[in-house]
């Protein structure tokens, strides 16, 4: 039986000559990722040994970092990986920004977006992954996202480190006229049996002129000295003394500042504006209308000589808006549309197994339920901002961005330049969570800088503009059915969801082309899970709406995990079975998942009595298991409810199998981060739209989890020698359902929508 998925890909490959070309191209070995097209820029006394490492005469080791640091610790993690194979001394390691080059393009992150199940080991998937991987090597983009940085660069950076080490050894051997095999590298030096040694710094220049080694042997993981250690974050100290530079901290000589007010209606634009009052205010240089660009909403910008003068002047603007097509949108109307979509079609089937309709017909007991999740905002701590200077036919963009090459391309387009005439300086990110994959702010900043007469302009959005002009996680409605036999065994599972698709919108606003393939993110977390459904059908119906949607931490996993793990809990209770036991019974052929589940049950004291909360109200536990971005995570939440119905989460026990943990401390931090982010959303987040306008604007009406509301979090990392998997996002999906499941045990209320609110 040909699935729709196979048909889509098959029809592409079937086109004659094109197909033959593709086959030929696919058969070619993957291009190496060792050396950039253009020589790497180096500082005085510095030598680049390949595209990933530069060594200075001062013995500093500069790891070329093509990933954005947004708190996930990737600077430190990737530096450890290369430094390990290089045999550098950790104390000599620094991080330097990578230029834009194809070798830094993210392959794994995009391949991950193909709509295949992790358990699928078929040929079609293998071909599709290979073709996509090769395409991304050529036509892809530099992206920090999809929890893929370590997965993508684990081998390339190890190879780069090993290659550089071999060149340093070769240079020493040449100088000392001894065989290279008698030399070894250790802690930043090359040593010879005779006792001679030299530092990497002393050998760097000679090493750089060595030929690139043909083959390099990677270390046996059992000999790792750095990898697996809880090393301190490289940039921690600078983040504690005010010296770390985020996008918003960029300072350039002569820099001016811009503030903007955008149309409050999604997708709207400026009809007319009166800047008379604004222009009278001190320091105002220019007032200009900015059209919608690459996802940004149209608005009026003020350029002034100080940040507050720009903000003050924006408040004095009088703008008439063209509210556009979205002016009738409302949250209630949207939910109605999504539900109606499910009434007529259950969409693209991402997963089918057995005859689920027959299974449900023959079931002793059937359950059904409808779940909902709202649009939610990213709410990074650092509001959106970007600095651009356009002068003498060239431009520089200083940005906290997850996509530097896309930023360059879009800034160039806005400024009418070739990409090569634009230089992107990446800054630290005050939170990303997927928001900084978008280039709307970059485009807007470039459009403003174009009118600034050659001075650099820093555009800073207010928190209000940031919250009301986000790319939200799409609202979703999901319907479930399950069938049980007389002894409570699960016979069949049906899940159909409806909501906007993120990928087509992203592709459209970045490159102006409509997205084609089924968007895996719509059903990820639903169809790609390890449970061994005897029969199942899982699909998604795309509903197109003018609400801007984007990648929100863990993307489709975030709401689909809530739906799936909650309904699975409903099944457990309906079957009279323990929720952990029910899940375990569906993981017979998944020993890694089973181990994670059993470990979280053990560590959390599942099944043992729980003492009451401090105010005497009872506590209960809820469990959830979810796989995403290559990792398996299970969480148990301990919850109580106060007398005024506030939900209090006391503890979250978290177990992760992420393959090899490069730096266990960073893994733990990411579990804590994902849990707090997911919990904040589960208890608070809801972006409501009325008349096409987002109602939330700042922390008073878009509240987030506070210090005093944060649970104790305990993380256990399963020891593993498998290759490293993602950790940035996998902590988020399980927490909402774990809490909701605990609430059911506690109160008998089954909460089927987010944010969680008890009646």
């Amino acid at each position, binding site marked *: 039986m040909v699935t729709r998925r196979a048909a889509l890909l098959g029809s592409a490959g079937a086109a004659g000559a094109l197909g033959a070309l593709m086959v030929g191209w696919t058969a070619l070995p993957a291009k190496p990722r060792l050396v950039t097209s253009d020589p790497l820029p180096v500082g005085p006394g510095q030598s680049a040994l390949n595209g990933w490492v530069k060594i200075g005469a001062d013995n500093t080791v500069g790891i070329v970092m093509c990933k954005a640091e947004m708190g996930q610790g990737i600077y430190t993690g990737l530096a450890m990986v290369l430094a390990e194979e290089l045999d550098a001394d950790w104390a000599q390691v620094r991080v330097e920004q990578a230029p834009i080059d194809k070798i830094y393009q993210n392959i794994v992150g995009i391949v991950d977006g193909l709509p295949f199940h992790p358990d699928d080991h078929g040929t079609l998937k293998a071909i599709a992954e290979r073709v996509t991987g090769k395409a991304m090597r050529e036509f892809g983009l530099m992206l920090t996202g999809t929890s893929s940085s370590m997965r993508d660069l684990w081998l390339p950076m190890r190879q780069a480190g090993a290659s550089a080490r071999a060149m340093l050894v070769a240079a020493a051997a040449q100088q000392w006229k001894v065989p290279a095999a008698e030399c070894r590298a250790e802690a930043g030096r090359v040593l010879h049996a005779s006792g001679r040694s030299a530092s990497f710094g002393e050998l760097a220049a000679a090493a750089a002129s060595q030929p690139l080694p043909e083959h390099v042997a990677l270390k046996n993981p059992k000999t790792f000295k750095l990898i697996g250690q809880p090393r301190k974050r490289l940039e921690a100290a600078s983040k504690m003394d005010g010296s770390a530079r985020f996008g918003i901290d960029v300072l350039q000589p002569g820099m001016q500042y811009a503030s903007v007010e955008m149309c409050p209606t999604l997708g709207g634009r400026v009809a007319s504006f009166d800047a008379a009052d604004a222009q009278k205010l001190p320091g105002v240089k220019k007032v200009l209308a900015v059209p919608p660009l690459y996802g940004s909403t149209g608005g009026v910008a003020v350029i002034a000589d100080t940040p507050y003068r720009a903000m003050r002047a924006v*408040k004095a603007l009088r703008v008439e808006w063209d509210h556009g097509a979205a002016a009738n949108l409302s949250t209630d109307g949207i939910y109605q549309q999504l539900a109606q979509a499910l009434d007529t079609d259950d969409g693209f089937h991402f997963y089918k197994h057995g005859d689920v309709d027959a299974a449900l017909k023959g079931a002793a007991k059937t359950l059904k339920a409808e779940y909902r999740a709202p649009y939610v905002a990213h709410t990074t701590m650092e509001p959106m901002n970007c600095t651009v200077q356009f002068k003498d036919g060239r431009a520089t963009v200083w940005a906290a961005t997850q996509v530097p090459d896309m930023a360059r391309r879009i800034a160039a387009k806005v400024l009418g330049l070739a990409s090569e005439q634009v230089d992107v300086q990446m800054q630290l990110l005050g939170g990303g969570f997927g928001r900084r994959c978008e280039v709307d702010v970059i485009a807007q900043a470039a459009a403003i800088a174009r009118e600034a007469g050659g001075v650099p302009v820093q555009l800073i959005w*207010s928190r*209000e503009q940031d919250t009301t002009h986000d790319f939200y996680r799409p609202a979703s409605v999901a319907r479930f059915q399950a069938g049980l036999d007389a002894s409570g065994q699960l016979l069949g599972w049906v899940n159909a969801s409806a909501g906007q698709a993120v990928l087509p919108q992203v592709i459209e606003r970045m490159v102006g082309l409509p997205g084609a393939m089924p968007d895996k993110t719509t059903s990820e977390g639903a169809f790609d899970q390890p449970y061994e459904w005897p029969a199942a059908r899982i699909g998604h119906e795309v509903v197109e709406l003018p609400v801007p949607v984007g990648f929100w931490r863990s993307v489709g996993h975030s709401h689909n995990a809530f739906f799936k793990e909650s309904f699975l809990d409903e099944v457990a209770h309906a079957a009279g079975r323990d929720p952990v036991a029910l899940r375990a019974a569906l993981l017979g052929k998944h020993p890694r998942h089973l181990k994670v589940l059993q470990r979280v049950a053990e560590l959390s004291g599942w099944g043992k009595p729980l003492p009451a909360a401090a105010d005497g109200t009872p506590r209960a536990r809820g469990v959830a298991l979810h796989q995403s971005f290559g990792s398996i995570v299970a969480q148990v939440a301990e919850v109580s409810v106060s007398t005024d119905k506030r939900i209090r989460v006391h503890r979250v026990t978290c177990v992760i199998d992420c393959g090899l943990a490069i730096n266990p401390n960073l893994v733990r931090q990411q579990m804590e981060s994902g849990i707090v982010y997911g919990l904040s959303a589960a208890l608070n987040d809801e972006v409501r739209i009325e008349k096409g306008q987002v109602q939330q*604007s*700042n*922390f*008073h009406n878009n*509240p987030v989890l*506070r*210090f*005093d509301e944060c649970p104790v979090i305990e993380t256990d990392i399963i020891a593993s020698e498998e290759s490293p998997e993602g950790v940035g996002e996998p902590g988020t999906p399980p927490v909402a359902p774990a809490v909701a499941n605990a609430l059911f045990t506690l109160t008998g209320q089954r909460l089927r929508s987010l944010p969680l609110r008890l009646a």
Partner: protein
Amino acid sequence: MNMTNRHMNRARLLIAGGWLMASGCLQAQPAAGASAPAPTLRPLSQFSNIADDKQRSVALFVEAGKVIQHPRCLNCHPSGDRPLQGDGMQLHQPLVLRGKDGFGATAMRCASCHGARNFDATRAFSVPGDKHWHLAPIEMAWHGRTLGQICSQLKDRSRNGDRTMAQLIEHMAHDGLVGWAWAPGAGREPAPGTQKAFGELIEAWAASGAHCP
């Protein structure tokens, strides 16, 4: 025409009441974004036809109760250690505690966030402020109490900051933080009427025997 004293007094009250109403209308700040006009306080003249002193006293206090039990006042007269916030009287976000002196916990004093004046953050929202921003002491808790209970508290010198009736009237009519309730800044509804009108109601209540509902 021969006017008796009573008629003269009634005329004076009518004129005074009319003047109060007019000035009240001019001074009342409409709530930001509200389409309905701000609630006012009934002028004293509207109580003068209640012959019985006790009844009139109670009626005056009930009118003053529109202020006393308004969110602008109740929010900082909480029954516990946490202020309330907003027209919906939710628990203050973030967690804020009265601390030892009603001016906040250590390292999170009220003045950490609340300045000497309202701060206009956006066109629609301001951060409230006053030179003496703090919580009323716990013995002056009003939230969750009936107007009658609040009335008794106000008269009890062990619970009203040891104030005489004159000092109480002075506080209600002239205190700066109390007065903030009528100019609370964008994003929240002012207390009804004006501080002057409120003060006069309290004064008239005291003069008529300070009876409680």
